[in-house]
C-alpha cells in the first residue's frame, strides 16, 4: 500500500497523457496498422505482413535519400556543435553586451520554419538576392536551383544560420555555471587556454552538449519545411532528404502502405542513433579509473 501525498498529482498530469495518447501513440499505432495491411478502401484490406518493409528496404531511391540524410546530419553536427561552442566561448561573460548577444542569437530561432525557407530563397536568388547576386557579381556562377552543389551549400548555410544559435545558448548556459575558482586555479596551475577548455570547460559542458547533440541530430534528421520551401528537394533529387521523399511516396504517389513502413523504419533509425549518441556522450570521461 503506497499511501502517499501526491495522488492528486496524477489528475493534474492526466490531460497531458490523454493529449499525448491521441497525438502520438494512436497515430503511431495507425501507422503500424497501415504498414502491415494493404488497404483498398473502407473495410477492404489484406494482411501483407512484412511485404511493404521489404519493398521499402529494396528501394534504391530510399537508399540514396538515407545516405543524403546521414551526410546532412553529420555535416550539421560537425559544423554546428564546434561553431556553437566557439561562439559561446567568445561571448562576453558579463556586462551590457551579454543581453545584446543573446537577443541577436535568438532571432533566427523565433522565425517560422517555412518563412526561413522563403527568406533564403530571396536571399540567394542570383538576380535580386543579396547573397546570390553578390556572389555572381564576383564572377562565380551560383544558382541553387541549377547546381546540386550550390543547393547543398545553400541548405547547409540556412541550417547553420537557423540552428547554431540554439547550440550557442546551451553551451553558454553551461559555461556560465562554472565557478570562477576553476579559472583561478587553472591560471595558477599555468594551464593554457586550450588546457582550460579541454579539462574544465568541456567536461563541465558535457551535460548541455549531450542535449545539444541529441536535439540537433533529431531535428536535422527530420528536416522538412526549410529545404522543401527552398529547393523542393531538387535540383533533381540532390536535396531530397528522407522526410521529403517520404511525403512524396505518401502524398505524391499515395502509397500509404510503403510510406507507413518507411515511417516506422525512419522512427527506429532516429531512436537507435539518439541512444548511441546519448550513451557515447555519457561515457566520455567517465568510469572508475583511467
Amino acid at each position: 500500500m503506497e499511501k502517499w501525498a501526491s495522488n492528486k498529482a496524477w489528475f493534474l498530469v492526466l490531460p497531458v497523457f490523454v493529449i499525448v495518447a491521441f497525438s502520438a501513440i494512436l497515430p503511431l499505432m495507425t501507422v503500424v496498422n497501415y504498414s502491415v495491411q494493404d488497404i483498398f478502401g473502407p473495410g477492404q484490406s489484406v494482411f501483407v505482413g512484412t511485404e511493404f518493409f521489404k519493398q521499402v528496404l529494396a528501394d534504391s531511391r530510399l537508399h540514396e535519400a538515407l545516405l543524403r540524410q546521414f551526410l546532412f546530419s553529420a555535416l550539421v553536427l560537425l559544423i554546428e556543435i564546434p561553431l556553437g561552442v566557439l561562439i559561446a566561448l567568445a561571448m562576453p561573460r558579463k556586462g551590457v553586451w551579454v543581453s545584446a548577444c543573446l537577443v541577436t542569437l535568438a532571432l533566427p530561432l523565433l522565425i517560422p520554419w517555412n518563412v526561413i525557407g522563403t527568406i533564403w530563397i530571396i536571399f540567394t536568388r542570383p538576380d535580386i538576392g543579396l547573397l546570390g547576386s553578390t556572389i555572381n557579381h564576383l564572377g562565380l556562377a551560383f544558382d541553387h536551383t541549377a547546381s546540386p552543389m550550390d543547393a547543398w551549400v545553400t541548405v547547409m548555410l540556412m541550417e547553420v544560420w537557423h540552428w547554431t544559435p540554439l547550440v550557442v545558448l546551451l553551451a553558454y548556459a553551461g559555461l556560465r555555471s562554472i565557478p570562477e575558482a576553476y579559472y583561478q586555479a587553472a591560471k595558477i596551475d599555468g594551464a593554457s587556454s586550450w588546457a582550460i577548455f579541454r579539462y574544465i570547460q568541456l567536461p563541465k559542458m558535457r551535460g548541455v552538449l549531450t542535449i545539444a547533440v541529441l536535439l540537433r541530430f533529431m531535428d536535422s534528421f527530420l528536416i522538412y519545411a526549410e529545404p522543401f520551401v527552398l529547393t523542393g528537394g531538387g535540383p533533381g533529387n540532390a536535396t531530397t532528404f528522407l522526410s521529403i521523399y517520404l511525403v512524396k511516396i505518401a502524398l505524391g504517389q499515395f502509397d500509404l502502405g510503403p510510406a507507413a513502413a518507411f515511417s516506422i523504419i525512419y522512427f527506429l533509425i532516429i531512436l537507435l542513433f539518439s541512444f548511441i549518441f546519448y550513451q557515447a556522450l555519457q561515457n566520455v570521461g567517465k568510469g572508475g579509473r583511467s
Partner: protein
Amino acid sequence: MARIELNNIAHSYLHNPKSEADYALKRIHYEWEDGGAYALLGPSGCGKTTLLNIISGLLIPSEGKVLFDGREMTQLPPEKRNIAQVFQFPVLYDTMSVFDNLAFPLRNRRVPAKEVTRRVQEVAEILELTPFLKYKAAGMTADAKQKISLGRGLVRSDVAAILFDEPLTVIDPHLKWLLRRKLKEIHDQLKLTLIYVTHDQVEAMTFAEKVMVMYEGELVQIGTPQELFETPQHKFVGYFIGSPGMNFLNCTLDGNVARVDGAGIRLADETAALGAKAKGKLELGIRPMYLEVQTRKTEGAVPAQVRLVEDQGAYKIITLEMAGAILRAKLGEDKPVPEKEAWLGFPREKIRLFADERLIR
C-alpha cells in the same frame, strides 16, 4: 620560497574612490618572512579575500606594490608569480586521475616526464594519496579532494607561497583535525611560506605562527596567538578572539580603582596610571577564563547574579549579571558552580584597559 612584501597596498573596487569608506582595503604595509605560517583572520567583508587575491595576482591593487624577494610582482598575472592556492571548495580536474591532477601544473610548465613522476610520487607520499593515484579525482572524498588541491601546489619546486582560502569549510570536524595537522607537518617539513585566510579563530590560531586580524579593510593587529589573546590592541580583537569573546565593562577611574556602576575593581598601579592619562571612553576588559567565580564572598570580590549555566563538556560557561552589565565566565569541569549568588574576582594582571576601543594596557 620567498619573502613577500606589501608596500602601501590599498584597494578600492570603485573607479574613483573618494573617501576612506570607498576602500575595501585600507593601506597595508607589511612583510611576510620566508617560510612563515601566517593567518589572515576576520569576519566576512573585512577585506581578507581581497588581500589574498592581490597576493595571488588575481587582483591588481589600486595603490601600492607587491614584492616577492624584492622583485616587483604587482602587475604580474598569477601564473607568473609562483604561488599556489587552495580554494574554499575543492577545485579539481574531474576527468583526470589523481596522478594527472597532481602532474598538471608540472606538465603545463613542460617539466620532463621522469621528473613529473618523481615529484608526483613524492608529494603523494607526503599527503598519503599514493594508493589513490590511479583513481578518478571526481570520486574522492571532500578531504582527499582538498589534499589533491594542496598537492597541485606542493609538486612545484618553485612555489614561493601557498595560499589557503578557508580550505576546511566543507570538511567534517574530526577530519579538520587530521588535515590541519597534515598542513602543519608539511610546513615543518618543507618550510614553505603559508598564508591561510579564515573567519575561524580556532583554525587561524592553531595553524599560524602569526595571525593578522582584519576588520573593515584594516589590519587591526598582527601577533602571535598568545599576544592576540592576552593583549588585544583593539576591542574588536578582544571580542573576535576567544570563545566567548572578552568581557567589556564601561568604567571610570577613581585612583587605582575602576568604578563600574558603583562596584569597584582594583587595578594594577601602572594600569591605573596609564588610564588616568588616557583620553576618551574608558572600558575594562577581561577574558571569561580569567574571571574568578567564587561561591562565597571574599576580599575585593564583586557580587553578581548567575543568569545561565551552560555545560560545554570540558568546561562550563556561566552568564552573570554584575552592576547592570552581562559578563560571561568560563569554568573548568571540576570547579564548583555557584547557584544564584556569585562573587567575581578580577585578577589584576589579567585586566585590560581600553580608551576609545584601543588598548592602553
